[in-house]
């Protein structure tokens, strides 16, 4: 964990063109020593391009990269210090597991028995000590990725790059390997960059997440920060599920949505400014419909359940309410659903707690 906060990798004003297409646009970022960083974003956002620029595989068009106080952006990838793991594993098919892991070591003129010891240690570390003489084709996807991981770690690189390493695996294996990579990182402390489009993966593994879109950084922060205080509507929408409502600042602390007035923190956004008001489905509180139609509490409004979707531990309600709200998503525990006797067509009262509402000014 970055207690010391020593910068290990420093990216400055990095830009990468593919023809006319700007894949990464003037991006700057500091990564601390020993940190586990996730580049997260939709496909085409530039996360893999950024990773490949760090490795030197697809050199940047302009900008600087410094690794361990050494400028690396102008040296060929073969002289940089990194290990890499790909989605496709990229294990050499004609070499055994042992030979694959030993591949980089053999080149360092390490004595044979030392190589043997190191390889076995590494395979032990990733939990597959018994498969040394098998070929990649004889292993499952999860096993292959473990081998790829130990091959990348064999030469003790200062930087570990993981390019969507879990995307080709099925859900159960993915979840298990997620935890193993995380604990491996904690044991070895190697600075790690993981590229993924899977937000759950990023939230569960990263020390810090770099959310990217259109070649730019949208937000950098811990998983908690990213989730609870998204810096932009894009992050709000991309991470988790979010309700968006179109509104207008009425006065400081009050937003109007259609004819409804909502109390929330408005910061220094000017009166009359168009905004988007957001709230997460799990933050919407649902109450039984009180007989007095116009509700008593602040930010409380009558709604009707249009449909409900059973999702295991909770239910997602699709609610229609007053004009301007659109269709709202609200998550209710299964128990609550039973208590409130929610079915399709049920009328409820929802409450938007002020502390959970965030506004984003509309950029005109």
């Amino acid at each position: 964990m970055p207690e010391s906060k020593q910068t290990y990798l420093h990216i400055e004003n990095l830009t990468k063109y593919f023809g006319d297409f700007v894949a990464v646009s003037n991006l700057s970022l500091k990564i601390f020593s020993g940190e586990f960083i996730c580049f997260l974003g939709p496909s085409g956002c530039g996360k893999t391009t950024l990773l490949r620029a760090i490795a030197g595989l697809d050199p940047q068009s302009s900008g600087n990269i410094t690794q361990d106080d050494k400028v690396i952006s102008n040296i060929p990838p073969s002289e940089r210090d990194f290990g890499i793991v790909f989605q496709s594993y990229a294990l050499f098919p004609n070499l055994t597991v042992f030979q694959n892991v030993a591949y980089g070591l053999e080149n360092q003129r390490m004595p044979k028995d030392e190589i043997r010891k190191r390889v076995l240690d590494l395979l032990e570390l990733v939990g597959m000590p018994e498969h040394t003489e098998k070929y990649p084709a004889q292993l499952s996807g999860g096993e292959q990725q473990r081998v790829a991981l130990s091959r990348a770690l064999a030469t003790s690189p200062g930087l570990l790059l993981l390019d969507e390493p879990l995307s080709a695996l099925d859900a159960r294996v993915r979840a298990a390997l997620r935890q193993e990579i995380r604990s491996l990182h904690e044991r070895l402390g190697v600075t790690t960059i993981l590229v993924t489009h899977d937000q759950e993966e990023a939230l569960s593994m990263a020390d810090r997440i770099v959310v990217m879109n259109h070649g730019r950084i949208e937000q950098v922060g811990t998983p908690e920060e990213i989730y609870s205080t998204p810096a932009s509507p894009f992050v709000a929408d991309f991470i988790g599920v979010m309700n968006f409502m179109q509104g207008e600042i009425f006065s400081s602390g009050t937003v109007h949505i259609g004819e409804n007035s909502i109390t929330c923190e408005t910061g220094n956004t000017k009166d009359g400014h168009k905004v988007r008001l957001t709230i997460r489905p799990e933050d919407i509180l649902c109450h039984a419909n009180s007989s007095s139609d116009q509700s008593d509490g602040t930010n409380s409004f009558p709604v009707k359940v249009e449909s409900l979707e059973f999702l295991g531990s909770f239910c997602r309600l699709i609610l229609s309410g007053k004009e301007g709200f659109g269709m709202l998503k609200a998550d209710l525990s299964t128990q609550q659903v039973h208590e409130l006797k929610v079915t399709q067509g049920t009328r409820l009262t929802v409450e938007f707690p002020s502390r959970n509402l965030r506004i984003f000014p509309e950029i005109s």
Partner: protein
Amino acid sequence: MSTASVLPVSVSSTARIRISRDDITLRSGLVLLITLLVIAVVFPLYSLLSKSFEDMDGEFVGLQNFREYFETPALFTSITNSLGVAISVALIVLVLAFIYAYALTRTKMPLRGLFRGIALIPILAPSLLAAISLIYWFGNQGVLKSWLLGASIYGPIGVIMASCFWVFPHALMILITALSTADARLYEAAEALRTPKWRVFWTVTLPGAKYGILSTGFIVFTLVITDFGVPKVIGGRFNVLATDVYKQVVGQQNFEMGAVVSLVLLLPAVVAFIADRWVQRKQVALLSARAVPFQPKADPVRDWLLFAFCAIIAFIFIAMLAMAAYASFVTFWPYNLSLSLKNYDFDVMDGGGWEAYYNSIRLAIYCAVFGSGLIFLGSYLVEKVRGIMWLRNILHLSAMLPLAVPGLVLGIAYIFFFNHPNNPLGFLYGTMGILVICTITHFYTVSHLTCLTALKQLDPEFEAVAISLKTPVWRTFGKVTLPVCLPALLDVGSYLFLNAMTTVSAVVFLYSPETMLASVAVLNMDDAGDIAPAAAMAMMIVYTSAFFRILHAIFSNYLKRRTQIWRSQ
């Protein structure tokens, strides 16, 4: 992002990355191979082009030669003759080979493997063999002469029949590929919609094979219009472009006119080449990775009808080969039908003797060894070098070029280029070296594409991983790339060997008395009236090719079994 990362590095990149030693090695390799291909293809073609604008003394005369050519009626009729024959053969072979390929790939007809093998026989023989065999069947002293009802085999009929025979396997292989890549889901959908079988054929099968069919048409057309062995042997007084070139250059030593006819011959070949490339590009997206392979079901009526059809074709093929084999052992056709090895006593005949045969083997081995190595290296550089897209594209284009150049044209271009007094490479003229260079060049493209296909199946990240492990590029090439691509490399070697054994078109202009080849000897002995020894020499080529093919199959199988453990899914 995945789409973005495969795009070439932008030329507008401002930051310069110092290139590593590996990069220098690879880039030098690229430049070297481009240089070799430019010398082997581009320069000779340029010589040919400039020759066509010169008179006998080397003075520039503009379009004079072309005017002369088109004003000579005899030469001009060759164009219509050539087109007529090539189009007829393309249509006939297309229909026959399509039905044959359909029977092999889409039915449960018995003996499919055997039929496939028989149909590939012509690949083992020079195109001349078919013509020689037809002479024994239908020629002046042929056993079935009466079947032609008075028509002569020496002329368009013979040329078309013989051409159909030797191009058949080429057409068949493309069509088998086109028909094998069917998506079973389309057929299931059609069946679920209760579509009648004939309609499924017209709406699913045929459109699916559309590009393969077009491609076949173009390739057959090019093969026939540029082949001169068949019309030379059986064409009689029926002139075609290819024989004109030969007559102008070898017969009349009129090199300028030969250059003009070559260029005329180059035109349809280039058009067919471009059309074929266009078609190939269209085909790529046709079959997605998710397609489910089609498994044919038995249908007795259809299967047995097709069996009868294939049996007839196979019978004809065997009859063609058998007649040549039989005739080669007959002491003196048709008067003394006792069998002997007299016709194989090449040393007492004109045509180069047994030395020609050994030369052919030498040529075939050199081509297989050096050719496959060089071509694999070239395709590796095209596919696996990072960055400098433009240089890789130049190499790829240079590698594609030979496909558009008929062997005959290449051969003549080589005379002009290598025989030029100021060419420092002139020492190659008349040696085995020039035959090897010419043959490798002639068959470069198909080999290049085969290697490229094999290389594309490797994970593109192998090189990235190797770099991250600080491994030099040659080590990964030797330890991973080469072993994994070995089957493809063997295929290429075998392809080059067989073609070097059987080719006539380019080498016929380039051999010297010391480097006489078996295939050329067949031509020369036939020309001299020694048709039985010609058949014998053609059969020697067949025996050798067949032997080599079997050897290749055994070794490939052994390799497959040995590496099965890591190839299995």
